[in-house]
């Protein structure tokens, strides 16, 4: 069984499916394309679960590695997974089918193209998490921009073009620097193979500048303060499915990039910039939480809360402790599920009322009891209540941060209070209270498919909240290996300095 190139299969299946949809005519049945794409993405999900099942937790090296020559002596197509990347692959394949399922009457025109964009995006995202060659990584990483750009630009709201360009400008600007850095790495090390680079290391004197180049790209995608302003706009304009993909998976590429490349390749650079990242993360946590508190648009509020949550992630990664890193990975998975669900929740009522303004709602628990329960579960997840995944991620991150720096942990913990404030206030204004607005009285509660989608998201966010072992076990060895390498590199550097 090991001979099947399972990772390539994972990457290719959605694209093949997309091509299939592209070249078949849509039949009289309106949804046939949708079902085909759901089917394809579910196959991919099963494949990834099989991959996870076959994956050896106790082995810290890359597994399922495939290495093919692409351009002789220059670039190899090399993919492989370790404990860290496999979770993101599973997250991607898990979210995509739900995302496609959630596509409904809101996408009125060019449904086919929309599905094609989502499927291609899935391929690219999986590619990002699997690639073990910098050039390949770059291609996937930037490639992911294009379908998202189209999703916002074509199927977005009224200000879609502005948002799409803002999104494109920001992310491209960062990426250019990363491309230069990758070329530079090839120039000084003679390879872009990540495994080899891990072994030989990168010359200490270039590390800081290279770290900055990579950072500029990842910081925009995370997004970190102060380059976060594209995210709220992009979310507000994007259709629900686009928002879900953006929040759940696209943002995680950067966090993954920090772990895999910034820390893995440039330990000395990372060490040098730790305080810099801490400060930006803390600003992200406190600042955006306060901004989220004042939002009048539901999607914007959740978008800002995403920035705050990702602030926790970057904070945890650079604590370089077992708890901090595991917490960050956990937080990314958790945020992937919970933010996806929250955007879907907003989508549900937006579809019925065509407004996202918080003021227009209130008291909908009376007409939508099922919706209120499910929305409450994810609200609690987002504010980090124990028993949900949100708690474990945040708590581990803060624990790791505390080990490294007392004050940082204290300030970041304040963000937890603010998180509860904006989420509960949002919930109160939308769901509770007297049902005054006449239009709301005709709201219909969740239909079957909405219940199924949201329940499927609620199950893991509660299950892993009570029993996080499966996730933590998967990453444990890889993370400790990463930390050992990091510390070893630093020691050598310090010894040489003397």
């Amino acid at each position, binding site marked *: 069984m090991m001979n099947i190139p399972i990772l390539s299969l994972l990457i290719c299946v959605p694209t093949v499916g997309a091509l299939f949809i592209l070249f078949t005519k849509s039949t009289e049945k309106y949804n046939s394309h949708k079902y085909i794409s759901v089917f394809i993405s579910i196959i991919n999900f099963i494949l990834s679960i099989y991959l996870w099942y076959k994956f050896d937790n106790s082995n810290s090296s890359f597994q399922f590695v495939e290495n093919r020559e692409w351009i002789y002596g220059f670039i190899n197509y090399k993919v492989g997974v370790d404990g860290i990347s496999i979770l993101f692959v599973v997250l991607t394949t898990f979210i995509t089918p739900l995302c496609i399922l959630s596509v409904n009457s809101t996408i009125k025109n060019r449904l086919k193209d929309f599905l094609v964009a989502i499927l291609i995006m899935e391929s690219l995202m999986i590619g990002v998490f699997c690639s073990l060659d910098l050039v390949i990584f770059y291609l996937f990483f930037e490639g992911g921009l294009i379908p998202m750009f189209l999703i916002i630009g074509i199927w977005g709201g009224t200000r879609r073009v502005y948002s799409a360009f803002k999104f494109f400008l920001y992310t491209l600007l960062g990426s250019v620097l990363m491309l230069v850095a990758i070329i530079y790495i090839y120039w000084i090390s003679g390879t872009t193979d990540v495994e080899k680079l891990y072994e030989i290391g990168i010359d200490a004197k270039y590390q800081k500048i290279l770290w900055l180049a990579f950072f500029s790209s990842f910081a925009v995608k995370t997004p970190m303060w102060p380059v976060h302003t594209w995210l709220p706009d992009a979310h507000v304009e994007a259709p629900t499915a686009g928002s879900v993909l953006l929040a759940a998976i696209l943002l995680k590429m950067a966090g993954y990039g920090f772990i895999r490349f910034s820390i893995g390749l440039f330990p000395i650079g990372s060490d040098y910039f730790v305080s810099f990242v801490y400060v930006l993360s803390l600003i992200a946590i406190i600042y955006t939480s306060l901004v989220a508190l*004042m939002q009048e648009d539901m999607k914007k509020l959740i978008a800002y809360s995403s920035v705050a949550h990702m602030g926790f992630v970057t904070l945890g990664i650079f604590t370089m402790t077992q708890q901090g890193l595991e917490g960050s990975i956990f937080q990314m998975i958790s945020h992937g599920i919970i933010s996806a669900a929250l955007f879907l929740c907003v989508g549900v009522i937006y579809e019925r009322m065509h407004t996202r303004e918080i003021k227009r709602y209130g008291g909908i628990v009376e007409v939508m009891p099922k919706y209120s329960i499910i929305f409450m579960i994810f609200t609690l997840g987002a504010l980090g209540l124990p028993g949900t995944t949100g708690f474990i991620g945040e708590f581990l991150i803060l624990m790791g941060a505390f080990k490294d720096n007392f004050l940082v942990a204290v300030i970041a913990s304040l963000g937890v209070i603010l998180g509860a404030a904006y989420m509960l206030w949002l919930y109160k204004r939308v769901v509770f209270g007297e049902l005054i607005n006449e239009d709301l009285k005709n709201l219909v509660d969740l239909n079957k498919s909405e219940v199924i989608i949201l329940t499927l998201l609620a199950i893991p966010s509660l299950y892993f909240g009570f029993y996080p072992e499966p996730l933590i076990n998967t990453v444990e060895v890889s993370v400790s290996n990463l930390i050992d390498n990091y510390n070893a590199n630093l020691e050598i550097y310090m010894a040489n300095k003397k």
Partner: protein
Amino acid sequence: MEYFILFLPLTAAIISGFFSKFIGEKFCNYITCGFTTISAILSIIIFYDVIFNGYQNNLLIAKWINSGSLQVNWSIKIDALSAVMLVVVNSISSLVHIYSIGYMSHDPHKPRFMAYLSLFTFAMLTLVTSDNFLQLFFGWEGVGLCSYFLIGFWFKKNSANSAAIKAFLVNRVGDFGFALGIFLIFYLFGTVNYDEVFQQINLFINDELNFLGIKVNSIDLICILLFIGAMGKSAQFFLHTWLPDAMEGPTPVSALIHAATMVTAGVFLVVRCSPLYEYSEFALSIVTIIGMTTAIFAASVALVQDDIKKIIAYSTCSQLGYMFFATGVGAYNVAMFHLFTHAFFKALLFLGAGSVIHAFHEEQNISNMGGVKDKLPVTYALMLIGTLALTGFPLLSGFFSKDAIIEFAYLKNSSLGYYAASIGIFTALLTSIYSWRLIFKTFHGDYNNQSIKIEKIHESPMVMTIPLIILAIGSIFAGYFFKDLFIGFEKSYQFWNSSIFFLEPLSSEHPPKWFIFLTPTLVTVSIPIAYYFFVKRKDLLPVIVDNNRPFYNFLKNKWYFDEIYEFLFIKSLKKIGLYFWKKIDGLVIDRFGPDGISSIIKILSNKAVKFQSGYIYQYAFIMLVGFSALLTYLIIK
């Protein structure tokens, strides 16, 4: 058996919460009441086992978080301390469940209400049976969540929703300290398991931490941080503001959560961590000071409130203050004793108040009541018992526990101890006055309600009065029967065993005779005084109030805490948020970031467009200029 105690309420909550449509409302009542009652009986059996056989156990249910050196399990720890809490939580909970059948009988969402109550019971049980700080934190937040749900149970009321959020957020502030305390414990001890932490304590007694350039003893810091958590949950001074507002919830909730169980979690935490607190003189004095400040502050505010539930809420706050200063003077077992007796008489008072409110059709203002003692004889009698027990009338349960606290404070033989004791005595006097004020204004005098005719006032049904009677029996006898076990000299050490740690044994002396008699005398004398002012000569009070207007307003407005917090935190944070959003995000980042760049590009391209004029002579001219410039450059070079 332990599994049943813990998971029966959870099962009941799930059944009642999700399947009420299939099994019917009645069946939900039976399930939730039945399961919690079984749970209560099992807890009493365990309690019995602990008393007579010194039973102890530590069950592991499953692994929870396992990250690096952090190992946390789901567990059930049974020792004297958790056994006491089990009995308190489960017995009050089952009585409140039964009472709610009657109280909530007209509510359309009854199954949901019962489910929340059972869920709360489960969360509280995970809190008290934890063997590590993290599960404790889980239960801690869990009870907070249920409290949030239950305060906001009547979701149409805006005030209820706001109160619910306020409760959650103020508790979050406390949890902020608590979580930091847990981080610090993990940082120092490398574990969050109670036993492992307490065993290592000797290694860290003189350990110092550098915090912002100040050297702090690490044990002191841990204790203070944990105490901040306790202050939030137990509504102590500075973090008390949520408790009176929490009275927006249905009255059974106030009895269970905001009197008998959840709010005592803070006291439980401090007692549980007695091995830590015993090594921190500094933290103990902070606990004492906060405790006694709360006691006297809340009692003073309770004097002038008119809402029957708010008076009892402030009284709870004040009694929790007593418990804290008991722990502060090192008398952890006495604190637990007061927690135990307080659970009975405070639940009784709340449920009794609920009965009154029920009779008056949701009227809560005591100025609109009065003269109904013959109409509500059972409620009146039971409320009287509750009041006598609360004020510490001789031989009732509050007498044994409250006086013991004051005595131990006195025996501490330090200036802080004497101070605490005198505050304790004065607060006992205030307690007596506001409690009797409540009784006299509610039941005596003339009937003052305009909207409801007195003939319509009727006694509550049996399903509500029977739990009250059981609680009344507890309020009368719990003190007398359990005093040796909880605070007796020989027996109590044997009973508490290792669950409470004393660095030095408590003083076995007796305070002077006059001191012992002081509090009961004051309490008893205050009854006729209160009767004189609140029933006989009602006309005197407005005069006194008029003469002391500013002081009265100060008390009436609860020392202006809400106004100050509103100004300091809520308004200013909102302003800052708005500023960040509109000014920094909008005017700075976007203006100089993406918008700026795109506008620059636009300007440049507009300029570039002008070059393409279409006239050949212009192009030729520019080419010529360029060519000659190039030539010049090459020649000079």
